[in-house]
């Protein structure tokens, strides 16, 4: 069963992305594309003539996709949460390396910004894992899914996760790493055709990844998981459509400032059994 889910993960991510495009369009007063537009885009990309900038660049892009898929797969099979976060970190590092492997200025700035956003969100992800550990005494995702919902005691860590989601999904106000009006998509700029498809699908996997992290807070309650995912989805899109993009220094200050405070308070609370 898990294998099926793992294989389907990018497709579900694509569907989620399609739904989100419609929701976003409606929030902007537009009709929006068809639900399957992400897949149509993919077929179109297959048709394009692939241009290879250099082999390392493409290889790192593909590695980024595969590692991300592994990270998603590891969450689905229910292994160690901390391990998953480090695999995900590895995937991001591949992306940054690919950005630096070409000569485009936009790609360099994008990779630079990607690195800086990692500085902002990685500590929070690790603290979230630490929160689960302090609460339960284990990192195992399988066991977390079997346990009670932890939203009640870890709600401040959940708030920190909410700050991470826009960064990971490249949404306003925290989409400076991609910032198409400034740096034309950052690290994506030199990818084309079938190679870009890997990056495109990696984006869908990011959706699955963050929403799987959201589900962790629901524990064994399916109902709560559905409510959490849909409300987070709505919230992220509302904020996306109500804010401008903030600059990288602001991004780091906001996420680390608010996120670290929330998570450390939460950890202290959990540590003292409050």
């Amino acid at each position, binding site marked *: 069963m898990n294998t099926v889910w793992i294989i389907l993960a990018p497709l579900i991510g694509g569907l989620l992305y399609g739904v989100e495009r419609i*929701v976003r*369009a*409606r*929030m*902007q*007063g*537009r*009709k*929006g594309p068809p639900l399957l537009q992400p897949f149509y885009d993919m077929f179109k990309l297959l048709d394009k003539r692939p241009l290879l900038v250099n082999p390392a660049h493409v290889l790192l892009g593909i590695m980024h996709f595969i590692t991300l898929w592994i990270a998603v797969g590891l969450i689905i099979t229910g292994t160690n949460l901390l391990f998953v976060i480090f695999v995900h970190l590895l995937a991001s590092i591949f992306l940054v390396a690919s950005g630096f492997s070409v000569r485009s200025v936009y790609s360099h700035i994008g990779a630079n910004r990607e690195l800086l956003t990692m500085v902002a969100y990685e500590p929070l992800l690790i603290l979230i894992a630490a929160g689960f550990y302090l609460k339960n005494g284990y990192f195992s995702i399988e066991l977390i899914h079997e346990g009670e919902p932890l939203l009640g005691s870890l709600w401040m860590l959940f708030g920190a996760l909410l700050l991470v989601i826009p960064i990971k999904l490249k949404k306003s106000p925290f989409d400076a790493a991609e910032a198409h009006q400034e740096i034309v998509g950052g690290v994506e700029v030199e990818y084309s055709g079938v190679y870009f498809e890997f990056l495109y699908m990696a984006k869908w996997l990011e959706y699955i990844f963050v929403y799987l992290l959201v589900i962790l807070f629901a524990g064994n309650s399916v109902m709560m998981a559905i409510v959490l995912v849909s409300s987070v989805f709505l919230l992220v*899109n*509302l*904020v996306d*459509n*109500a*804010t401008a993009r903030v600059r990288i220094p602001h991004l780091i200050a906001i996420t680390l400032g608010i996120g670290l405070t929330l998570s450390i308070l939460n950890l202290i609370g959990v540590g003292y059994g409050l």
Partner: protein
Amino acid sequence: MWYSVKKAFTNLLSPPQTIDYPATPIKRVERYRGLIEYGEEHCIYCLKCEKACPPGAILFTHTDTPTENPKNKKSLAYDYNPHLCIYCGECVRACPKPNEALWQSEKKPGIGVKEDRVNERWFEVEGRKGS
């Protein structure tokens, strides 16, 4: 910021502003400035429209098979290029008999790229005019 959030939320629930364009046709306004149309039988061949036209989209050239209009003493033929026309209506304002000999309709011109070399015939007309 709450205002923007509220806006985004109400937009989600209200119908979109965009329409399914090819399926739903665009509403054409009244008095839309469209194609210039010509009523040969009323034309007095004063050639004012030809002089007034800024891009030169109306040309009168000599023809061997003139119309039966008695005013057409120099055996001229009217030619109009809708792809050159800028729909400004100067010709209609210059015309001594507007609405009879020359008027501006609300029709849109056809798409120019349907066939290759749409202007071939027009170049020929212009060539005749020049010589």
